[in-house]
């Protein structure tokens, strides 16, 4: 896949905010001394008066965002997933979630693909944490196209939104004709033997795995679930009922993220044999992103191997 175009979704975040800045005069961007890394630096350049650097104080930033939203502005609070969902969890829960304020959280550097910085900065629990907050929309886009659509949908949505972006460039899997709606998943490839439900960079891995599985005569249905909350339960149940075997794939802990959401849904509505691909209840480690994804079996080959093992078990 070396000829495939790769873009980091954090790049998309910065660029899309610049686009939206013109259309939404009440849109403001907050950072916690990481504008260079969250890629909102481009927004700061375009709209210096509407970029607020809160310094290294993420908890304060989240509550300030709440105050701005309560006063009619649309704040995009930006920092690493670790600090947005982790450090500032209670501020997000109590200052933003409970009053259901119109704050958009742009969480970059999620997952092990943060790479060399290692486990302290590789957030693998954010989807679980954010998903537990009532009224919070939680999205994990797969590529540049979907990330852009997510951010545009977020600004139009009235209420809190958590968006998960990555540091590493990831393959662009969606074309210009891509249609996005909050809460709607999509079947990217029809199949009959197994469903692979993925989000984030694992969507590209799942598509790659589907090709390898096809070579073995296995027909995999690939389902993209960008919005893990609200979950497209209808689609999850539909694909589970069709193939009878479901694998989830995500760059997150197997606890509480996409795998957790799908398992909750299916165990109540359509009990199905399942396997969760993700980081298996451990912390990450340092290393370049692509070899790390390989080691943790979250690349195409890793997903392929795990799906095969699941089907053969």
């Amino acid at each position: 896949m070396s000829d495939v175009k790769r873009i980091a979704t954090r790049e998309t975040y910065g660029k899309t905010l610049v686009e939206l800045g013109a259309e939404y005069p009440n849109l403001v961007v907050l950072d916690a001394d990481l504008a260079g890394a969250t890629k909102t630096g481009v927004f700061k350049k375009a709209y210096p008066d509407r970029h607020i650097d809160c310094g290294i104080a993420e908890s304060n930033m989240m509550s300030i965002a709440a105050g701005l939203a309560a006063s009619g502005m649309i704040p995009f609070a930006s920092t690493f997933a670790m600090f947005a969902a982790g450090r500032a969890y209670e501020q997000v829960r109590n200052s933003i979630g409970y009053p259901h304020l119109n704050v958009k959280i742009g969480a970059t550097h999620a997952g092990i693909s943060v790479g060399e910085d290692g486990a302290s900065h590789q957030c693998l629990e954010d989807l679980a944490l954010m998903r537990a907050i009532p009224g919070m929309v939680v999205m994990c886009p797969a590529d540049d196209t979907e990330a852009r659509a997510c951010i545009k949908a977020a600004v139009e949505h009235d209420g809190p939104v958590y968006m998960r972006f990555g540091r590493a460039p990831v393959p662009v899997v969606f074309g210009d004709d891509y249609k996005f709606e909050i809460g709607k998943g999509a079947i990217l490839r029809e199949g009959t033997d197994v469903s692979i439900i993925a989000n984030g960079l694992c969507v590209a891995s799942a598509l790659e795995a589907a090709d390898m599985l096809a070579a073995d005569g296995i027909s995999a249905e690939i389902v993209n679930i960008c919005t893990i909350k609200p979950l497209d339960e209808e689609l999850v149940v539909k694909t589970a009922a069709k193939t009878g075997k479901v694998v989830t794939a995500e760059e997150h802990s197997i606890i509480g993220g996409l795998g957790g959401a799908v398992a909750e849904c299916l165990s109540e509505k359509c009990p199905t044999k399942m396997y969760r691909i993700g980081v298996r209840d451990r912390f990450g480690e340092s290393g370049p992103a692509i070899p790390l994804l390989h080691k943790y079996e979250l690349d195409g080959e890793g997903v392929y191997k795990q799906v095969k093992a699941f089907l053969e078990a």
Partner: protein
Amino acid sequence: MDVQALKKIANEVRKDIVTEVYYAKAGHPGGSLSSAEIYTYLYFEEMNVDPKDPKNPDRDRFVLSKGHTCPGLYAAMCERGYFDREELKTFRHIGARLQGHPSMHYLPGIDMSSGSLGQGISVAVGMALAAKLQGKSYRTYTLLGDGELEEGQVWEAAMFAGAKKLDNLCVIVDNNNLQIDGSITEVNNPYPIDKKFEAFNFNVLHADGQDFESLATSFARARELKGQPTVIICKTLKGKGVSFMENSVDWHGKAPNDEQYKIAMADLERIGEAL
């Protein structure tokens, strides 16, 4: 409004506080009573608010950072005409608009849901910043407990407010010297409060939090001071007005029983008659 009239209202606010907590069989009377004059002054003198138009975008904002003392806030709002006195008896009951900690969705007039200590001041900073960004002239007020100053987020907010020169922000500290586990110097030690805020680039004012003339002077001065946010450190007495609750840690978060309620109301009746 003359001082005598404000004193009478503050005494009614105290009766309301005791009544709320009594009917709820729970709540935080001590820190509500210590702030009775502050709430009264804010809602009757200082803030540009209208109970009939609680969402007016140009209104002054109030964030109760020490959200547990909402019986005092509800009482002042009730006296100001936001809702009928009878509703005070629903405090902390299922389905009540008067939630155990303030909720902006339950009760119109509450500008921010609060209760988790340290967060309210940051939200107030956001509101003050929004006014600056939008070119609006409303002011934002937030009330903190002195024990609350132990929360690190308070100082994150203070540093940012000082850095951004938010002179439309007025932070009020209810310095009643007690927190749940004891006196604030036994538990930790937020003192010197004035020097801390000064170091964070605030104008620092001191007031007698139980004296309307002192409060009036400080709030007027805070409006005049430009280029920096202002903190008014208000010396108060926890449980003020109820004999057995005064300066007592025991009454931080406890409701009076039937007999205690009668004594408390009699104390406040006597104070009212003397006014």
